């Protein structure tokens, strides 16, 4: 990266952490919500 490795890889590492984190937290939030109330399963059409 011509001496710019820290800045370039740092940028993409933060991007990966933020995007991965957002997806992970959302998946967990949804899983917990479905677990909390079984009645909600009716919304899923099950």
């Amino acid at each position, binding site marked *: 990266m011509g001496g*710019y490795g820290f*800045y*370039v890889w740092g940028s*993409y590492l933060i991007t990966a952490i933020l*995007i991965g984190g957002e997806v992970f937290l959302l998946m967990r939030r949804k899983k917990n919500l479905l677990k909390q*109330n079984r*009645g909600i399963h*009716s*919304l*899923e059409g099950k």
Partner: protein
Amino acid sequence: MNIYKYATPTAFYQLAGKLIPWFAIPATVLFLLGLYIGFFVAPTDFQQGDAYRIMFIHVPAAWMGMFLYVLMAFYAGLGWAFNARLASMMASALAITGAMFTFLSLVTGALWGKPTWGAYWVWDARMTSTLILLFLYIGFISLQAAIDDPRRADRAGAVLAIVGVINVPIIYFSVQWWNTLHQGATIRLIGKPTIAPPMLAALLIMLGACWLYSVAVVLLRLRCIILEREQNAAVVAEVAA
């Protein structure tokens, strides 16, 4: 098919579930393609060396931050004016992803600024107005979280979101209105872009990926918000059935 039925949160919940993979999968493909072109096909910049490769995430993140704010204000306004629950929920769902992209644009901008300008942060017009955008997002999220009644929280958030829209053109035109350190626009609506074709291709593909990602994630969050707010409605529907 009656499309208006999807205006009710419970019907939209199911539609959103079906739509998510159609955005999430292309988003992943475009991210990978954009990164490949950005790192292996696009040449090294004659002025900035390889540091310019930060652009492929910095510019889409900054655009998404601004675009999602306008969209959030639009849905918040729609929910306020027409008392439409789903529109207000959409505004809440957009806020966190918009804030994430704005934060990302500031951090990647700092990492780009250090090697090219010699400083992580300067109080330049564009950077300051982008920081204000992040504060507007945080204000919107905090305000909604502070009010217990969701409908009142929606209305209060809508006022803040709509007033804050004024900041978006300020960010966009800041590089023209003031003498800033931040470089001018690379891609213009009128006239040719000022970068090599593979660089432009990588940039546009990454923008597409960020856009598709935003749709998928916002729909996923909207589903969570619907579940949280409509819990009682769903339980009642089940008991009644």
